[in-house]
């Protein structure tokens, strides 16, 4: 009987020492003794595929494809209107262009919500290089990012809103296109916020509402 207990103790210690206990951190692939329909024969987003030649589940649209964006004509109970998203045909909104020139004014209606959204998106995507105030002193400049534009200087104030939109969309110089990361509306929100940043650079104490002036620190 003693040998049985010793055997069990030995077996347990071997299993535990090989497999480890709770709190073990390692790269061993999780083990499902009972699969429980855990992994079903289906494609998950961004997963691998043996079927497609490039090994990806997600397909890239053929070049030149434009999102349909709904039908060209929305007819809702007697108030038909053109759908602005149809084939991304709205040049001003989707490309910041009007004919051959850049649109001068933001096609999205300016309100405080848009500016808040713009600030949030700017802080996420732009501030890493351009800095929170737009002076071009973001955290990346400490790690070897050179030639970051100070987007609030006088030269950049001359750029039109459409040109700003185009730079975010397609990049400029070393800046890569941000179209894959920032949606069209968010890009316009960022453009609006950049204008607010420019204004803030030439701000005076008298611009601050009377009630908040006490919070101003030197």
């Amino acid at each position, binding site marked *: 009987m003693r040998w049985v207990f010793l055997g*069990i103790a030995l077996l347990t210690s071997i299993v*535990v020492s090989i*497999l*480890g*206990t*709770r*709190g*073990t*951190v*390692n*790269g*061993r*692939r*999780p*083990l*499902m*003794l009972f699969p*429980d*329909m*855990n*992994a*079903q024969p*289906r494609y*998950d*987003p*961004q997963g*691998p595929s043996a079927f497609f030649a*490039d*090994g*990806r589940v997600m397909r890239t649209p053929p070049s030149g494809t434009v999102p349909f964006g709904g039908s060209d004509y929305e007819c809702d109970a007697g108030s038909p209107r053109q759908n602005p998203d149809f084939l991304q045909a709205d040049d001003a909104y989707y490309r910041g262009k009007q004919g051959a020139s850049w649109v001068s004014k933001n096609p999205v209606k300016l309100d405080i919500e848009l500016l808040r959204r713009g600030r*949030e998106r700017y*802080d*996420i*995507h732009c501030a*890493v*290089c351009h800095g929170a105030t737009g002076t071009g002193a973001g*955290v*990346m400049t400490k*790690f*070897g*990012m*050179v030639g970051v534009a100070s987007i609030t200087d006088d030269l950049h104030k001359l750029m039109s809103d459409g040109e700003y939109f185009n730079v975010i969309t397609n990049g400029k110089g*070393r800046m*890569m*296109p*941000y179209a*894959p*990361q920032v949606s069209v509306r968010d890009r316009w929100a960022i453009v609006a916020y950049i204008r607010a940043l420019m204004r803030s650079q030439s701000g005076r104490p008298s611009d601050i509402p009377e009630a908040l002036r006490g919070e101003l620190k030197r």
Partner: protein
Amino acid sequence: MPLVFTKTADIVLGRIVVGCVLSAGLIVSGLYYYGHPLYTRVGYAPIQPVRFSHEQHAGRLGMSCLYCHTGVEQSSTAKIPPTQTCMNCHQAIKATSVQLETVRASWTSGAAIPWERVHRTPDYVYFNHAVHVRRGIGCVSCHGKVNEMPVVVHDKPLSMGWCLDCHRHPEEYLRPPDEATNFHWQPPEARTQIEEGRILQAKSRIKATESCTGCHR
């Protein structure tokens, strides 16, 4: 005097003892298996093709989670960023680093970087990131302190019981939706997490579902 036990009593007794030992063994190994990292995935830290450090990027550099995981506010998946997102900076920063060789190869060839998936729910669970993040469940609540992880470790079990803990008492985890990606968020001084959570819950009218069809379809 008649015998109390028949002759087969010894055999029955032996079987009972063996049965007890075997069931005890089964219970112990069951508890061991279902609490084990290999089953719960807690502690799973696979070796990635690129030694990307969240500690460096999200921690020290203070980059927002949303810089890379752009899908988290709109779609069910947070999205692993495309190689282009890496190259936004790494065409200039550490542009000749050996550690980034795989990234550059992917950028020139167009082939995807074969990242190892760390977090996953079973295929019969339809988890949606957007719905949680936009209502004010922080990244940190499910993924742990990623900003302190040089290698991402599966931090929480993502089991059904664990999900229901929060679905039954969301006030213990809620935060303002715009603080969802903030790893250092604390409830305001005047209130506890529960009080703050209750206010936010009422404000956003959150009724975390406990119905099966909430997650299983």
